[in-house]
């Protein structure tokens, strides 16, 4: 691919304000045909706004978008789509109750006399679009009957059906498992080879390195740099993305052994005895000490989340028991677990976490309230104090405690949820993917928080898909495979490679 040719997509000098906030100032980059170009930056760096300016959701105050050398100024996503820019979002924006076929061609069907739909033509086009992905999906299947990964491919097929030259993938891998990610990557490579330019947005740096040809970094709404992926180190990239905040994350290491040693000598907080349920986890044994942070590592589907759900009690165990400070706890009743002090910050923030229309304050005090019981209300003064305390301590960006939580960004919602559990004064806190979907800056803050909570004696169980996070936070890691614990690492012995070896070696 010649480098001096007209770029496929050229974005120059985009500026966009929201009220008093300058979301984008002078953002420019070029996308070549046949490349995967990652757009990187923390939450709020301006990735989404840039995309939305390109796809006609927002209209920039100044700056231009050129497609194949011709300026376009789409006024709606549909217009962008018709001019050849397809977009697939993290949360599939399709209609779950319609068929695959209908979803692919919806809004673009040819109609004959009396508005009769030409289904033959629609079917042919849908097949062709799926063919481009080398996928064979039943066109008549109801979309909701397919796994999320498949639905995403249907969304991709929909984007390709209009013969898109530019494809934007916004966090496409966030809800996929490993095999599904592989399949998506295969399709992405296929499309790249066909000369389509792909803009790829993700929080997973490994995926960025693996997939992209070039990457453009944004920070605080500004363009920072565009680099070739080849020869670029993770360190350099993080430096670009984070600026000064990067150095702070670095130092931590040998002190870990001493801490791990100290925690191992403390009193037992939670004792899990042969807890299990068919299809979830086989006979889990776990002794959690005061102030200890134990990580559960393993591939997706190895039973990590299932462990968390069984200990908290949203799922019923068929065998085993739980003891908190030597006292038996009834398993399988979340309200009971919370009353005893065992709490779970679920991985699914949207479905299992937030109350979107309630305020930040209410979202923070609700677990404490249900712990106390409905007839024993948390006083307004106490609520206000809780809200004020955590908004300040966690540096939550909100217009105030009375803002609805749905108005906050994902990372800030996550902090509110953490505050919810901390306000309820847990003895054991299970953190399932506590940093999913949030930017590296906020991630570092949450890791710091975990450390200080551990010093205060709170016992935690942590699950994270990002192994380096468990390496930094945990005093002990249990490695799971096929719904069984197959090994344990302690202190400085916890490294990414050690965990991977455990997962792989076991026969």
């Amino acid at each position, binding site marked *: 691919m010649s480098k001096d040719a007209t770029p496929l997509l050229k974005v120059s000098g985009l500026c966009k304000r929201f*009220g*008093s906030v300058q979301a984008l100032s002078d953002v420019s980059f070029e996308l070549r045909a046949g490349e995967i170009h990652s757009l990187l930056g923390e939450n709020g760096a301006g990735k989404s706004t840039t995309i939305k300016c390109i796809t006609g959701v927002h209209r920039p105050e100044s700056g231009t978008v050129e497609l194949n050398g011709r300026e376009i100024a789409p006024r709606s996503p549909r217009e962008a789509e018709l001019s050849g820019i397809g977009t697939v979002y993290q949360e599939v924006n399709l209609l779950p109750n319609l068929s695959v076929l209908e979803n692919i061609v919806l809004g673009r069907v040819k109609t004959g006399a009396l508005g009769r739909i030409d289904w033959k033509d629609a079917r042919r086009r849908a097949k062709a679009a799926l063919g481009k992905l080398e996928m064979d999906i039943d066109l008549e299947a109801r979309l909701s009957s397919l796994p999320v990964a498949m639905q995403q491919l249907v969304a991709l097929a929909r984007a390709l059906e209009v013969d898109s030259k530019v494809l934007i993938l916004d966090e496409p891998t966030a809800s996929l498992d490993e095999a599904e990610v592989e399949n998506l990557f295969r399709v992405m490579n296929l499309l790249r080879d066909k000369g389509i330019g792909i803009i790829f947005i993700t929080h997973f740096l490994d995926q960025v390195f693996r997939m992209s040809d070039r990457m453009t970094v944004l920070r605080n709404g500004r363009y920072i740099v565009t680099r070739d992926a080849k020869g670029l180190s993770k360190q350099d990239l993080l430096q670009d993305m984070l600026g000064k905040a990067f150095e702070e994350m670095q130092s931590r290491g040998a002190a870990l052994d001493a801490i791990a040693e100290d925690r191992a000598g403390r009193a037992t907080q939670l004792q899990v005895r042969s807890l299990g349920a068919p299809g979830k986890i086989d006979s889990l044994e776990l002794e959690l000490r005061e102030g200890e942070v134990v990580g559960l590592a393993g591939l997706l589907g190895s039973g990590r989340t299932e462990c968390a759900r069984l200990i908290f009690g*949203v799922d019923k165990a068929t065998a085993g028991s739980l003891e908190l400070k030597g006292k038996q706890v009834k398993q399988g009743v*979340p*309200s009971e*677990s*919370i*009353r005893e002090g065992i709490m*779970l910050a*679920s991985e699914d923030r949207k*479905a*299992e*976490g*937030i*109350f*979107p*229309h*309630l305020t930040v304050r*209410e979202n923070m005090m*609700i*677990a404490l*309230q*249900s*712990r*106390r019981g*409905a*007839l*024993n*209300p*948390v006083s307004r003064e106490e609520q206000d104090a809780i809200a004020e305390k955590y908004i300040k301590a966690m540096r939550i960006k909100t*217009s105030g405690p009375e803002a609805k939580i749905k108005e906050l960004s994902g990372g800030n919602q996550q902090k509110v949820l953490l505050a*919810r559990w901390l306000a309820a004064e847990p003895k054991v806190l299970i953190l399932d993917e506590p940093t999913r979907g949030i930017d590296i800056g906020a991630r570092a803050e949450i890791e710091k928080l975990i450390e200080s909570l551990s010093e205060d004696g709170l016992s935690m169980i942590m699950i994270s898909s990002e192994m380096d996070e468990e390496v930094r936070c945990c005093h002990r890691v249990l490695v799971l495979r096929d719904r069984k614990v197959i090994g344990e690492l302690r202190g400085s012995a916890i490294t990414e490679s050690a965990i991977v070896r455990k997962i792989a070696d076991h026969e």
Partner: protein
Amino acid sequence: MSKAMEATVSKKSLRDNPLVWPLAGLALVVAFNLVTGPEFFSVSVRDGHLYGNLVDIFSQGARVMLLALGMTLVIATGGVDLSVGAVMAIGGALCATLVTQLGYGLYLALPLTLLMAGALGFFNGAMVVAGRIQPIIATLILMVAGRGVALLITDSDVVKIQDPAFLYLGKGYILGVPFSLWLVAAVFTVMALLIRKTALGLLIEAVGDNEHASRFSGIEAGRLKLIVYAVCGALAGMAGVLDAASVSAADPMRVGELKELDAIFAVVIGGTALTGGRFLLFGSILGAILLQALTLTLYNAGVPAAVAPVPKAIVIVGVCLLQSDRFRKQISNIIKIGGKAS
């Protein structure tokens, strides 16, 4: 935050107050009556009782107010109760039969009736909670079957009521004000206190906002729903008793007919979303008043009863549209563009 933004925020908070729109609807009705016939507002005293259209609005609206209070809670949990009209019929029929035909005293018949109505509501709740049936279907069952039960109780007859204590519920006055209004005021006060002074209200809102998340927060959604449906049933039973008392007869076919729709209307006009979550008890009371005021205004204006639902519907649609942020934004955009053009 810039000053301009602060200004829009404070303006917004007034518009965001959900009580504004039912009040605006009421203002419209009042204005209409001021123009067409100010005698609408005259309140006189006859036999020591207040008398006039305004009093009628409140006393006749009392039944829908009771229904709306219960319905508000059910809707807040993300459900709906279509059976309240039928439960009214059962309530009226049961209480009348107990008193008139079986000779029970009201002091016994009334609690028994409320207990029965509460149990029916509990049954609705159990279908929703334990049976995992969608509320609209679960309560549809009793809506259809309930009237049959009422007919069974009265042996398909209209039961005439002569018991003075019973009649007092519908026709009595305290300090010149109809008894039914005192009752609504008392029920409203007790409910508001119970719900806002404890955490019940917040927990109900949490369940309606995200039931799945409420489980993870340790809220016992099932128990709350059972309570709420039972309360809704009991209030419907009470409304049925009032209805029977006000016309001195319990007609199992007519009592509470289509009243479930009035109740749902009142709740929605009052600013509680049908999707659940945030609710406003007082808004529902306002909604019920607006409905009744509309009905009476149309009646006074000589609109035939058969046609009256049409203008009523128009006002209701108007209030509902005004509650939508999106609609208001579109309207204000149109006005802005129009202003620029001229």
